């Protein structure tokens, strides 16, 4: 059977894309999810704070996911659970592993990739020492505690001030653990300020910047870690080393988009985001294959994932109906001074509905700057920012009417200091 749209991944990105594809006229939409339930990572994010932009209220992760799951059911969108996609190709053939039918082949007119991301593990860190139990990624601990009901430790050190680590510091404290400290290698936090306030300050948990773990102690179970301050080149300073007793180390050192399928299908990847290169329609560089959510770039708010996924779903439906125009007049986007990356990477103004929301991340903390969008040396738009930090995604909206007027060159994004006059 040929499907209209197959969505790979049943997290918030996949759910929103599937609903939007269906609403926009794709008849036969299928979601494939390897987990036992739909919802993706949100199932384990039981804390509050999702949906402020989309629903104008504060929901927990499962509540946010369930609003979309209910809609998937109302629209009678097909989904397969316990099913893992193991291969896709450029012609949109899909091979998946199912519990009952073994390996199955599906042909699709359009594919939306929404596999999300995974956490960096200790392997990526190279901390010397043995391999005792008690070392978890913060997300793994979150799954154990919030979905499976196991407490993972009593005396905890968190390495990395990413949001998941901060949230787990609070969660474990509330469940009776002693969270001794959060260590951050950089001189700033990579987590949202709100999480620093409500997860650390509320419980007097100290956060040490310019600090890292240099040694792991313990044979069977973790017995402690040696921590140290780092210098400006992020090398540990020997004299500052000290031992901290703990039975649990949570790693919250960043997320990486999950793009094995994408790579194998030879879909071009952006080296900075580690996600596919996409255009204004969230289409990858392979016709008919779209992508959205954390598989494209790591978002800190799920609301933005939903916005982006609606575009992908709508575009996939348009593509199936032959309504997505294709020409080579795309403009490339480019981040220069201070901007690490910009998504989407290419813009065809003719495919833009009303405006494009450009997402980007900065490479450092900057205060009092303009976020400027330029083309051919001319300023298209600029937004004043009191502060930008790598932990919080920035966005700029540019109207179609402006994009239509561009005639050559890249769309450049840059930070400019505001001179006091």
């Amino acid at each position: 059977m040929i499907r209209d749209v197959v969505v790979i991944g049943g997290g918030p990105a996949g759910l929103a894309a599937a609903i939007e594809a269906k609403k926009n006229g794709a008849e036969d939409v299928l979601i494939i999810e390897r987990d036992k339930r739909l919802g993706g990572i949100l199932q384990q994010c039981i804390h509050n704070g999702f949906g402020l932009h989309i629903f104008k209220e504060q929901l927990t992760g499962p509540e946010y996911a369930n609003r979309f799951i209910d809609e998937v059911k109302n629209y009678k969108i097909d989904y397969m659970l316990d099913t893992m996609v193991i291969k896709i190709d450029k012609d949109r053939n899909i091979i998946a592993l199912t519990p009952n039918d073994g390996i199955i082949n599906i042909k699709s007119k359009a594919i939306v990739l929404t596999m999300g991301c995974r956490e960096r593990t200790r392997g990526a860190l190279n901390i010397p020492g043995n391999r005792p139990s008690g070392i978890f990624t913060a997300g793994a601990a979150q799954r154990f505690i919030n979905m499976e009901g196991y407490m993972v430790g009593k005396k905890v050190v968190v390495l990395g001030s990413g949001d998941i680590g901060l949230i787990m510091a609070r969660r474990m404290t509330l469940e009776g653990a002693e969270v001794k400290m959060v260590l951050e290698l950089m001189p700033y936090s990579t987590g949202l300020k709100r999480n620093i306030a409500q997860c650390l300050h509320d419980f007097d948990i100290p956060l040490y910047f310019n600090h890292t773990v240099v040694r792991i102690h313990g044979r069977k179970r973790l017995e402690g870690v040696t921590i140290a301050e780092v210098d400006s080149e992020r090398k540990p300073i020997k004299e500052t080393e000290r031992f901290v007793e703990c039975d649990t180390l949570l790693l919250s050192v960043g997320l990486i988009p999950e793009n094995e399928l994408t790579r194998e299908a030879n879909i071009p990847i952006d080296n900075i985001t580690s996600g596919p290169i996409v255009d204004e329609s969230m289409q990858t560089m392979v016709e008919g294959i779209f992508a959205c959510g954390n598989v494209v770039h790591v978002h800190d708010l799920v609301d933005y994932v939903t916005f982006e996924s609606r575009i992908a779903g709508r575009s996939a439906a348009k593509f199936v109906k032959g309504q997505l125009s294709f020409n080579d007049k795309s403009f490339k986007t480019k981040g220069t001074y201070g901007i690490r990356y910009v998504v989407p990477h290419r813009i065809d103004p003719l495919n833009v509905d009303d405006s494009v929301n450009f997402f980007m991340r900065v490479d450092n903390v900057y205060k009092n700057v303009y976020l400027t969008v330029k083309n051919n040396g001319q300023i298209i738009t600029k937004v004043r920012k009191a502060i930008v930090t790598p932990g919080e995604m920035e966005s700029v909206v540019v109207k179609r009417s402006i994009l239509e007027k561009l005639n050559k060159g890249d769309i450049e994004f840059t930070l400019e200091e505001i001179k006091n006059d």
Partner: protein
Amino acid sequence: MIKKIICINCPLGCEMEVLKDDGIIKVSGNTCKKGEDYAIAEIMDPKRIVTTTAKVIGGDREVVPVKTDKEISKSFMFDVVAEVNRHIFSAPLYVGQVLIENIFDTGVNVIATDFINRK
């Protein structure tokens, strides 16, 4: 008394200083009125939504995520978790189901935030 508070109402996260003296409260460092209101509320009676998990029997999961359906005084955070931990609920459970009514006579209920099917 001076207290430092980070405003959580928008991504800017203004770092504010709140001065409290004889019932007079002065806020500085905020960029907008929302920050001031938040700082005052944080000094007078800080409140939070509390989220945790409760034990379930007979379900497709061992635990159900729960939350307080309204903000509750910050001083109750640990008590809410302890109280929830004293209960065991039986499946099925649905999203929004009231599990503990009017906890500590605060007018706040503890509700389920995910569904649990029977095993």
